[in-house]
């Protein structure tokens, strides 16, 4: 029995019974429809108050899934590096502990508060790093030759990059979980697809470096290799080779990093050396490199422009620009377009085919931009793993 404010006494079961019969006439679920209504309101109210939190958990779950994948890739990278060192380097002791130490290796860039002279400081730090890494690899793999040492160094660097990516994502994931901050989680969740693409690209680079296969980044090197093959090769600083090639009535000095080991060389020093050998009497410098394509562009597309087309930390680009400015030498660039995934993965057939087109484009630039009897420098930029000369 219920007592209403006006003092009416109404039997509760009677009211509910009449309500139910009314509902049953209009609703297919009959007597259960009020449960559905309550359920609907509960869900509605829960979403009003906890919507953001639910969204956050969904995002965290997504990041967690990718993090597991990153962990798998990182572990595979470490495993591949250790296996390759054991196979090639034939070390006396187990290299696992040394590899684990190497994976945590860091390089601190120079202080940029006073930017004057920063390029030379950066170059010095990169040189120290390079020597240190090579020494570490030689200690880990004493039986490896120079080519294998370079390939092992690249393999370890890829494993190091994968380890770093995993740790950064894990940091933001755990930070987001700890603080339950939507914005921390959102940031990482939004850029995650791009990071995963990069990590997957590095994963395929692991085997490429371990086996010494040419990678997409080597497109520029391959152009130079094709131009210099069959001509006398000489070594020039640092870790580069050059050949004097007669081309369309001109003399071309073709430069590339010394292969077939994984190596990019110090292109800035090489260009400077050749220009100074010729007392600055160079009609033009043509640089060829692989470049990131935009979505929608074809892999292997060739584009032409001006400027020093070279990636990396910027030291080599700076040196080339300094030298050509000193002697007022025009500089042309040719790029082979490719995806981030193709850049470090084994070379795609489309890129390999584009190399021949790039060679033709180089010849066209020489014909259009120089006169007969001129001297030109052709620089093939990129990692020369799996590409000899």
């Amino acid at each position, binding site marked *: 029995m219920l007592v209403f404010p006006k003092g009416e006494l109404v039997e509760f079961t009677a009211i509910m019974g009449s309500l139910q019969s009314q509902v049953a006439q209009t609703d*297919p*679920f*009959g007597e259960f429809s009020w449960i559905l209504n309550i359920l609907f309101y509960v869900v509605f109210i829960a979403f009003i108050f906890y919507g953001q939190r639910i969204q956050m958990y969904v995002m965290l779950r997504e990041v967690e*899934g990718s993090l*597991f*994948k990153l*962990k*798998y*890739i990182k*572990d*595979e990278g470490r495993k*591949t590096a250790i296996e390759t060192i054991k196979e090639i380097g034939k070390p006396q002791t187990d290299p696992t502990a040394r590899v684990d130490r190497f994976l945590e290796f860091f390089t601190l860039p120079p202080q940029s508060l006073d930017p004057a002279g920063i390029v030379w400081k950066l170059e010095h730090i990169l040189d120290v790093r390079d020597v240190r890494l090579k020494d570490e690899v030689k200690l880990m793999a004493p039986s490896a030759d120079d080519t294998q040492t370079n390939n092992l160094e690249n393999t370890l660097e890829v494993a190091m990059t994968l380890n770093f990516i995993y740790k950064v994502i894990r940091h933001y994931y755990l930070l987001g979980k700890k603080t339950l901050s939507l914005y921390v989680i959102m940031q990482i969740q939004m850029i995650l697809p791009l990071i995963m693409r990069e990590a*997957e690209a590095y*994963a*395929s680079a*692991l*085997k490429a470096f371990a*086996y*010494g*296969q*040419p990678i997409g980044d080597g497109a520029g090197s*391959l152009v130079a*290799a094709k131009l210099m*093959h069959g001509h006398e090769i000489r070594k020039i600083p640092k870790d580069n080779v050059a050949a004097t090639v007669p081309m369309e009535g001109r003399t071309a000095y073709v430069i590339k990093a010394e*292969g*077939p080991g994984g190596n990019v060389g110090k292109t800035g020093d090489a260009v400077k050396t050749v220009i100074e050998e010729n007392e600055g009497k160079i009609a033009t410098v043509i640089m060829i490199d692989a470049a990131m394509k935009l*979505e*929608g562009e*074809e892999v292997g597309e060739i584009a032409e422009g001006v400027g020093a087309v070279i990636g990396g930390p910027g030291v080599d680009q700076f040196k080339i620009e300094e030298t050509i400015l000193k002697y007022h030498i025009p500089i042309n660039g040719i790029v082979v377009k490719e995806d981030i995934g193709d850049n470090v*993965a*084994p*070379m*795609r*057939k*489309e*890129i*390999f085919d584009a190399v021949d087109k790039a060679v033709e484009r180089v010849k066209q630039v020489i014909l259009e931009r120089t006169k007969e009897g001129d001297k030109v420098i052709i620089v093939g930029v990129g990692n020369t793993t*799996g*590409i*000899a*000369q």
Partner: protein
Amino acid sequence: MAKPPANNTATKVSSFVLMIIFVTLALSLIALILAITAFSYGNEVVAGYLLLIGFLGVALSTYVLFQTRRRIMRLKIEIPPINTTVECPKCGTKTVREFQRGDYIFKELGPCQKCNDKMLITAIYREVKEKPGTQSPLR
């Protein structure tokens, strides 16, 4: 490299998730049975709703189950086959074979079977087959 290790935590599926999937599947099947019963009693509207709920539940739980399986399958680093082209610079004889460790472009190999000149590796590449439907019409 291609197969994930059995004890990898990344390949494990949460037993809680599996439990939810199977409970949903069981409830959906019950809904389908109830739909048949309701239909036999002549309550066609209720039978229709139950049928809809049942099918939706079955579809949803199977989809989630397959997605969980796909997550495990995705955890593989796919290594595409790499081809090496070996060419004779003199007679032009060309063979394409699988990449072998130690191969590099412009590596000199054994003598050519036709002209006895030294064979040369002229190309090392991988072929990527674009999945149908992945190419954008905005090219």
